[in-house]
């Protein structure tokens, strides 16, 4: 089955995604010197982005629904404390996810 519409949809989504990912590299490709401001932004952004991504992941949680909020809140705090103490990402992710999966079954 060959469906032109599907091919075009995939092509458009692919081209836009690739464009977004590569645009900054095309603009500042080494021939043109990267401005100080962009270098600085590159240094500080990771810290802000990680906070943004945590919120992004939790965006579907309905704040008024306790059976959604409580498991998410406990699992986030648990993951954070474990990471702070042990500094082992794999352990924190694994244990945090198990805690979350158990909590959503019982709450």
């Amino acid at each position, binding site marked *: 089955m060959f469906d032109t519409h599907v091919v075009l949809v995939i092509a*458009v989504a692919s081209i836009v995604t690739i464009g*977004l*990912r590569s645009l900054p590299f095309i603009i500042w490709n080494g021939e043109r010197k990267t401005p100080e401001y962009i270098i*600085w932004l590159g240094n500080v952004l990771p*810290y802000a982005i990680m*906070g943004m991504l945590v919120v992004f992941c939790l*965006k579907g949680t309905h704040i008024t629904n306790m059976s959604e909020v409580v498991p998410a809140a406990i699992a986030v705090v648990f993951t954070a404390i474990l990471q702070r103490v042990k500094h082992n990402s794999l352990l924190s*992710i694994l244990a945090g996810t198990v805690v979350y999966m158990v909590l959503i079954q019982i709450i």
Partner: protein
Amino acid sequence: MGKTIKYAFVRSIPIMAGYIVLGTGFGILLDAGGYGPIWALAMSVFIYAGSMQYVAVDLLTGGANLITVGLTTLMVNARHLFYSISMVESYKDLGKLKPYTIFGLTDEVYSIVCDVDDKGLPEGVEKNRYCFFLSAFCQSYWIIGSLIGSILGGAVTYDFAGIEFSMTALFVAAFVEQWGAVKNHIPAITGVGVTLICLIIWGPASFLIPAMIGITIVLTVCKRLGFIGDTLQDDKSGGEANV
């Protein structure tokens, strides 16, 4: 070379379970929408953007026109501009490996490589190849997951409810690790605060782009006012955030 690949694999493990399971979820959804494994494969190879592929299933089954597809992709994936801006220096000298490594820069890969220059790598691990193979390992998990879901389709009745939290946990762990690495916490607090405010104002469907603009403005203003220095190791936050 072997050591570099092995290290890339080890660093990719935290992403493995999440990508395989979320990829499977995508495959099942696409199959239910009437599109088989070949399309799942094509999407995971050429688009390789988790949340966008989930949205694309709706766009396909709803018969959306190409302009809608383009604009939706732009909205959902605009955050990738941020990752690339912050990796412009790090990925500068990747040479032949550069195009693919940039293509494979997803949220999760970014959370692993974003501090690659500050942290230092183990002896014998070569940075450029490490970044390349990390991207490649992660995309292979995503592709494997999509194919599993697509081939098994409705036959999988798995109960992994809550496994998607592994992606949240990945970012929480990265956030905590980064928090501990610097003295100035204004960027981290700005990231959480501005995004939360934008989520409240614009709602879950369209808060990301306002959040990105807001974060950039707040950080720039903080720099102008002297609250953030050239690096986050200078404690210019007045010490109150020194947890």
